Protein backbone atom coordinates (compact mmCIF):
# COMPACT_ATOMS: atom_id res chain seq x y z
CA UNK A 1 0.00 0.00 0.00
CA UNK A 2 1.59 3.28 -1.10
CA UNK A 3 1.10 6.74 0.39
CA UNK A 4 -1.81 7.50 -1.86
CA UNK A 5 -3.61 4.30 -0.83
CA UNK A 6 -3.06 5.11 2.83
CA UNK A 7 -4.43 8.63 2.43
CA UNK A 8 -7.41 7.27 0.56
CA UNK A 9 -8.07 4.62 3.20
CA UNK A 10 -8.04 7.22 5.97
CA UNK A 11 -10.37 9.47 4.03
CA UNK A 12 -12.89 6.72 3.37
CA UNK A 13 -13.59 5.95 7.01
CA UNK A 14 -17.13 6.80 8.09
CA UNK A 15 -18.94 6.53 11.38
CA UNK A 16 -22.59 5.59 11.51
CA UNK A 17 -24.72 8.18 13.36
CA UNK A 18 -25.31 7.65 17.07
CA UNK A 19 -28.41 5.65 17.85
CA UNK A 20 -28.11 3.83 14.55
CA UNK A 21 -28.28 0.33 16.03
CA UNK A 22 -31.13 1.19 18.42
CA UNK A 23 -33.10 2.66 15.56
CA UNK A 24 -32.75 -0.56 13.55
CA UNK A 25 -33.73 -2.76 16.48
CA UNK A 26 -36.74 -0.51 17.19
CA UNK A 27 -37.84 -0.76 13.56
CA UNK A 28 -37.35 -4.50 13.66
CA UNK A 29 -39.42 -4.93 16.81
CA UNK A 30 -42.16 -2.65 15.45
CA UNK A 31 -42.18 -4.63 12.21
CA UNK A 32 -42.43 -7.94 14.05
CA UNK A 33 -45.28 -6.61 16.16
CA UNK A 34 -47.12 -5.51 13.03
CA UNK A 35 -46.61 -8.92 11.49
CA UNK A 36 -47.88 -10.48 14.71
CA UNK A 37 -51.14 -8.60 14.20
CA UNK A 38 -51.38 -9.50 10.55
CA UNK A 39 -50.86 -13.22 11.08
CA UNK A 40 -52.81 -14.10 14.22
CA UNK A 41 -51.61 -16.69 16.68
CA UNK A 42 -53.20 -20.11 16.13
CA UNK A 43 -55.58 -19.69 19.05
CA UNK A 44 -56.63 -16.85 21.35
CA UNK A 45 -57.01 -17.15 25.12
CA UNK A 46 -60.68 -16.23 25.15
CA UNK A 47 -61.30 -18.50 22.22
CA UNK A 48 -59.66 -21.38 24.01
CA UNK A 49 -62.17 -21.15 26.89
CA UNK A 50 -65.04 -21.09 24.40
CA UNK A 51 -63.49 -24.06 22.73
CA UNK A 52 -63.26 -26.05 25.97
CA UNK A 53 -66.89 -25.28 26.80
CA UNK A 54 -67.98 -26.27 23.31
CA UNK A 55 -66.02 -29.46 23.54
CA UNK A 56 -67.61 -30.27 26.87
CA UNK A 57 -71.14 -29.73 25.53
CA UNK A 58 -70.52 -31.72 22.37
CA UNK A 59 -68.94 -34.52 24.34
CA UNK A 60 -72.02 -34.67 26.54
CA UNK A 61 -74.19 -34.89 23.43
CA UNK A 62 -72.11 -37.58 21.89
CA UNK A 63 -72.00 -39.63 25.08
CA UNK A 64 -75.75 -39.32 25.35
CA UNK A 65 -76.13 -41.34 22.16
CA UNK A 66 -77.25 -44.74 23.43
CA UNK A 67 -75.91 -47.99 22.04
CA UNK A 68 -79.34 -48.81 20.66
CA UNK A 69 -80.00 -45.29 19.46
CA UNK A 70 -82.26 -46.53 16.70
CA UNK A 71 -84.79 -47.46 19.36
CA UNK A 72 -84.27 -44.24 21.25
CA UNK A 73 -87.01 -42.22 19.68
CA UNK A 74 -86.50 -38.77 21.15
CA UNK A 75 -82.79 -38.69 21.88
CA UNK A 76 -80.72 -35.94 20.28
CA UNK A 77 -78.19 -38.64 19.78
CA UNK A 78 -80.59 -40.48 17.54
CA UNK A 79 -80.39 -37.81 14.87
CA UNK A 80 -76.69 -37.54 15.22
CA UNK A 81 -76.40 -41.29 14.99
CA UNK A 82 -78.54 -41.35 11.85
CA UNK A 83 -76.33 -38.72 10.34
CA UNK A 84 -73.26 -40.79 11.07
CA UNK A 85 -74.70 -44.06 9.84
CA UNK A 86 -75.65 -42.16 6.70
CA UNK A 87 -72.01 -42.22 5.68
CA UNK A 88 -71.96 -46.01 6.18
CA UNK A 89 -69.55 -46.27 9.01
CA UNK A 90 -70.00 -48.10 12.27
CA UNK A 91 -69.33 -45.75 15.17
CA UNK A 92 -68.66 -46.98 18.65
CA UNK A 93 -69.48 -44.42 21.38
CA UNK A 94 -65.82 -43.65 21.97
CA UNK A 95 -65.25 -43.07 18.25
CA UNK A 96 -68.23 -40.78 18.23
CA UNK A 97 -66.67 -38.72 20.97
CA UNK A 98 -63.46 -38.54 19.00
CA UNK A 99 -65.17 -37.53 15.79
CA UNK A 100 -67.22 -34.87 17.51
CA UNK A 101 -64.22 -33.55 19.31
CA UNK A 102 -62.24 -33.21 16.08
CA UNK A 103 -65.21 -31.62 14.35
CA UNK A 104 -65.60 -29.12 17.16
CA UNK A 105 -61.90 -28.26 17.12
CA UNK A 106 -61.94 -27.69 13.36
CA UNK A 107 -65.11 -25.65 13.51
CA UNK A 108 -63.79 -23.59 16.36
CA UNK A 109 -60.44 -22.92 14.67
CA UNK A 110 -62.14 -21.81 11.46
CA UNK A 111 -64.61 -19.51 13.22
CA UNK A 112 -61.94 -18.13 15.53
CA UNK A 113 -59.53 -17.45 12.65
CA UNK A 114 -62.17 -15.84 10.44
CA UNK A 115 -63.36 -13.69 13.32
CA UNK A 116 -59.89 -12.45 14.19
CA UNK A 117 -58.91 -11.93 10.56
CA UNK A 118 -61.93 -9.69 10.07
CA UNK A 119 -61.03 -7.85 13.22
CA UNK A 120 -57.51 -7.29 11.91
CA UNK A 121 -58.74 -5.95 8.61
CA UNK A 122 -60.66 -3.35 10.59
CA UNK A 123 -57.47 -2.42 12.48
Amino acid at each position, binding site marked *: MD*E*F*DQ*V*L*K*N*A*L*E*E*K*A*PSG*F*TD*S*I*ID*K*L*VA*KEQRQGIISPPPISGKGFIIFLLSLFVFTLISVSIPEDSVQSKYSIGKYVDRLLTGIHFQFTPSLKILVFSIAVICLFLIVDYVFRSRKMVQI
Partner: protein
Amino acid sequence: MALNENQLIAKVKLGNTDAFRSIVDYYRDAVYGLSLRLVSNQMEAEELAQDTFLKVFKSISSYRGESKFSTWLYRITYNTCISHLRKNKPDLVEIQEYHGSSNFNSGYDNLMKEDNNEAIKNILTKLKPDDRAIIQLFYLEENSIKEISEITGFTNANVKVKLHRSKQKLKRMMEESGFNLERVFV
Protein backbone atom coordinates in the same frame (compact mmCIF):
# COMPACT_ATOMS: atom_id res chain seq x y z
CA MET B 1 -15.71 -9.93 15.63
CA ALA B 2 -15.19 -10.96 19.24
CA LEU B 3 -18.00 -13.46 19.21
CA ASN B 4 -18.10 -16.25 16.70
CA GLU B 5 -19.86 -14.81 13.68
CA ASN B 6 -21.33 -18.14 12.65
CA GLN B 7 -22.86 -18.63 16.10
CA LEU B 8 -24.38 -15.17 15.96
CA ILE B 9 -25.79 -15.84 12.50
CA ALA B 10 -27.29 -19.12 13.70
CA LYS B 11 -28.96 -17.26 16.56
CA VAL B 12 -30.26 -14.54 14.24
CA LYS B 13 -31.74 -17.24 12.03
CA LEU B 14 -33.79 -18.27 15.07
CA GLY B 15 -34.99 -14.68 15.46
CA ASN B 16 -32.63 -13.61 18.23
CA THR B 17 -32.54 -9.80 18.13
CA ASP B 18 -29.68 -9.56 20.66
CA ALA B 19 -27.44 -11.53 18.33
CA PHE B 20 -28.60 -9.33 15.47
CA ARG B 21 -27.71 -6.24 17.51
CA SER B 22 -24.14 -7.55 17.82
CA ILE B 23 -23.93 -8.00 14.07
CA VAL B 24 -25.31 -4.52 13.43
CA ASP B 25 -22.87 -3.01 15.94
CA TYR B 26 -19.97 -4.69 14.21
CA TYR B 27 -20.88 -3.85 10.62
CA ARG B 28 -22.78 -0.59 10.97
CA ASP B 29 -19.87 1.71 10.05
CA ALA B 30 -18.97 -0.41 7.04
CA VAL B 31 -22.54 -0.60 5.75
CA TYR B 32 -23.20 3.07 6.43
CA GLY B 33 -19.87 4.00 4.82
CA LEU B 34 -20.60 2.02 1.69
CA SER B 35 -24.12 3.47 1.48
CA LEU B 36 -22.78 6.98 1.93
CA ARG B 37 -20.13 6.41 -0.72
CA LEU B 38 -22.82 5.29 -3.14
CA VAL B 39 -25.53 7.89 -2.53
CA SER B 40 -23.39 10.81 -1.24
CA ASN B 41 -26.12 11.94 1.13
CA GLN B 42 -25.99 11.31 4.87
CA MET B 43 -29.73 11.11 5.45
CA GLU B 44 -30.29 8.76 2.54
CA ALA B 45 -27.25 6.70 3.47
CA GLU B 46 -28.52 6.22 7.02
CA GLU B 47 -31.94 5.19 5.80
CA LEU B 48 -30.52 2.82 3.20
CA ALA B 49 -28.11 1.29 5.69
CA GLN B 50 -31.02 0.64 8.04
CA ASP B 51 -33.06 -0.84 5.21
CA THR B 52 -30.12 -3.07 4.41
CA PHE B 53 -29.95 -4.44 7.94
CA LEU B 54 -33.71 -5.01 8.01
CA LYS B 55 -33.39 -6.94 4.75
CA VAL B 56 -30.53 -8.91 6.22
CA PHE B 57 -32.62 -9.90 9.24
CA LYS B 58 -35.52 -10.89 7.02
CA SER B 59 -33.50 -12.92 4.55
CA ILE B 60 -30.72 -14.29 6.73
CA SER B 61 -32.17 -17.79 6.41
CA SER B 62 -31.11 -17.66 2.75
CA TYR B 63 -27.49 -17.08 3.75
CA ARG B 64 -25.87 -20.50 3.38
CA GLY B 65 -22.31 -19.56 4.25
CA GLU B 66 -20.97 -20.16 0.75
CA SER B 67 -19.31 -16.75 0.80
CA LYS B 68 -18.09 -14.58 3.66
CA PHE B 69 -20.94 -12.99 5.60
CA SER B 70 -19.46 -9.54 4.96
CA THR B 71 -19.51 -10.21 1.19
CA TRP B 72 -23.18 -11.20 1.39
CA LEU B 73 -23.94 -8.15 3.53
CA TYR B 74 -22.12 -5.73 1.22
CA ARG B 75 -23.89 -7.22 -1.77
CA ILE B 76 -27.26 -6.45 -0.17
CA THR B 77 -26.02 -2.96 0.68
CA TYR B 78 -24.77 -2.38 -2.85
CA ASN B 79 -27.98 -3.63 -4.46
CA THR B 80 -30.17 -1.61 -2.08
CA CYS B 81 -28.28 1.60 -2.84
CA ILE B 82 -28.03 1.02 -6.59
CA SER B 83 -31.79 0.31 -6.74
CA HIS B 84 -32.41 3.50 -4.79
CA LEU B 85 -30.20 5.51 -7.15
CA ARG B 86 -31.84 4.03 -10.23
CA LYS B 87 -35.25 4.86 -8.82
CA ASN B 88 -34.47 8.38 -7.64
CA LYS B 89 -31.43 9.60 -9.50
CA PRO B 90 -31.10 7.62 -12.72
CA ASP B 91 -28.79 10.23 -14.21
CA LEU B 92 -26.27 9.77 -11.44
CA VAL B 93 -25.89 6.07 -11.97
CA GLU B 94 -25.11 6.20 -15.65
CA ILE B 95 -23.85 9.64 -16.44
CA GLN B 96 -21.93 11.07 -13.52
CA GLU B 97 -18.41 11.30 -14.85
CA TYR B 98 -15.55 13.60 -14.12
CA HIS B 99 -15.03 16.23 -16.80
CA GLY B 100 -12.16 18.23 -15.43
CA SER B 101 -11.95 20.36 -12.34
CA SER B 102 -14.31 23.10 -13.45
CA ASN B 103 -17.46 21.64 -11.87
CA PHE B 104 -16.43 21.44 -8.27
CA ASN B 105 -14.67 23.62 -5.76
CA SER B 106 -11.07 23.48 -6.79
CA GLY B 107 -7.92 25.26 -5.91
CA TYR B 108 -5.35 24.87 -3.29
CA ASP B 109 -6.75 27.72 -1.20
CA ASN B 110 -10.09 26.05 -0.85
CA LEU B 111 -8.50 22.75 0.04
CA MET B 112 -6.36 24.41 2.64
CA LYS B 113 -9.51 25.43 4.46
CA GLU B 114 -10.94 21.98 4.42
CA ASP B 115 -9.94 18.92 6.20
CA ASN B 116 -7.87 16.66 3.93
CA ASN B 117 -10.27 13.78 4.28
CA GLU B 118 -13.23 15.97 3.46
CA ALA B 119 -11.41 17.24 0.40
CA ILE B 120 -10.78 13.70 -0.80
CA LYS B 121 -14.41 12.76 -0.13
CA ASN B 122 -15.47 15.79 -2.10
CA ILE B 123 -13.31 14.72 -5.02
CA LEU B 124 -14.60 11.15 -4.69
CA THR B 125 -18.16 12.29 -5.30
CA LYS B 126 -17.13 13.14 -8.85
CA LEU B 127 -16.65 9.47 -9.64
CA LYS B 128 -19.51 7.20 -10.63
CA PRO B 129 -21.28 5.54 -7.69
CA ASP B 130 -20.14 2.03 -8.58
CA ASP B 131 -16.54 3.23 -8.93
CA ARG B 132 -16.78 4.85 -5.50
CA ALA B 133 -18.18 1.65 -4.07
CA ILE B 134 -15.32 -0.38 -5.54
CA ILE B 135 -12.78 2.01 -4.05
CA GLN B 136 -14.52 1.84 -0.67
CA LEU B 137 -14.67 -1.95 -0.73
CA PHE B 138 -11.07 -2.33 -1.84
CA TYR B 139 -9.25 0.27 0.22
CA LEU B 140 -11.27 0.52 3.40
CA GLU B 141 -12.96 -2.86 3.77
CA GLU B 142 -9.97 -4.59 2.17
CA ASN B 143 -12.04 -6.93 0.06
CA SER B 144 -10.31 -8.92 -2.65
CA ILE B 145 -11.03 -8.39 -6.34
CA LYS B 146 -13.00 -11.65 -6.34
CA GLU B 147 -15.13 -10.53 -3.38
CA ILE B 148 -15.80 -7.14 -4.98
CA SER B 149 -16.80 -8.99 -8.11
CA GLU B 150 -19.31 -11.04 -6.07
CA ILE B 151 -20.66 -7.92 -4.39
CA THR B 152 -21.05 -5.72 -7.44
CA GLY B 153 -21.72 -8.31 -10.12
CA PHE B 154 -18.87 -7.05 -12.31
CA THR B 155 -16.32 -9.53 -13.64
CA ASN B 156 -12.91 -9.77 -11.95
CA ALA B 157 -11.27 -8.12 -14.95
CA ASN B 158 -13.84 -5.35 -14.94
CA VAL B 159 -13.30 -4.66 -11.26
CA LYS B 160 -9.52 -4.48 -11.79
CA VAL B 161 -9.92 -2.07 -14.69
CA LYS B 162 -12.43 0.10 -12.83
CA LEU B 163 -10.21 0.19 -9.76
CA HIS B 164 -7.14 1.16 -11.75
CA ARG B 165 -8.95 3.83 -13.73
CA SER B 166 -10.65 5.25 -10.65
CA LYS B 167 -7.34 5.48 -8.86
CA GLN B 168 -5.72 7.25 -11.79
CA LYS B 169 -8.69 9.57 -12.11
CA LEU B 170 -8.59 10.38 -8.41
CA LYS B 171 -4.88 11.11 -8.50
CA ARG B 172 -5.37 13.38 -11.48
CA MET B 173 -8.27 15.23 -9.85
CA MET B 174 -6.35 15.63 -6.63
CA GLU B 175 -3.36 17.05 -8.48
CA GLU B 176 -5.59 19.42 -10.40
CA SER B 177 -7.10 20.57 -7.14
CA GLY B 178 -3.68 21.36 -5.78
CA PHE B 179 -3.82 18.54 -3.32
CA ASN B 180 -0.45 17.79 -1.81
CA LEU B 181 -0.09 14.22 -0.62
CA GLU B 182 3.06 14.95 1.30
CA ARG B 183 1.20 17.55 3.32
CA VAL B 184 -1.03 14.84 4.71
CA PHE B 185 1.86 13.03 6.33
CA VAL B 186 3.41 16.12 7.93
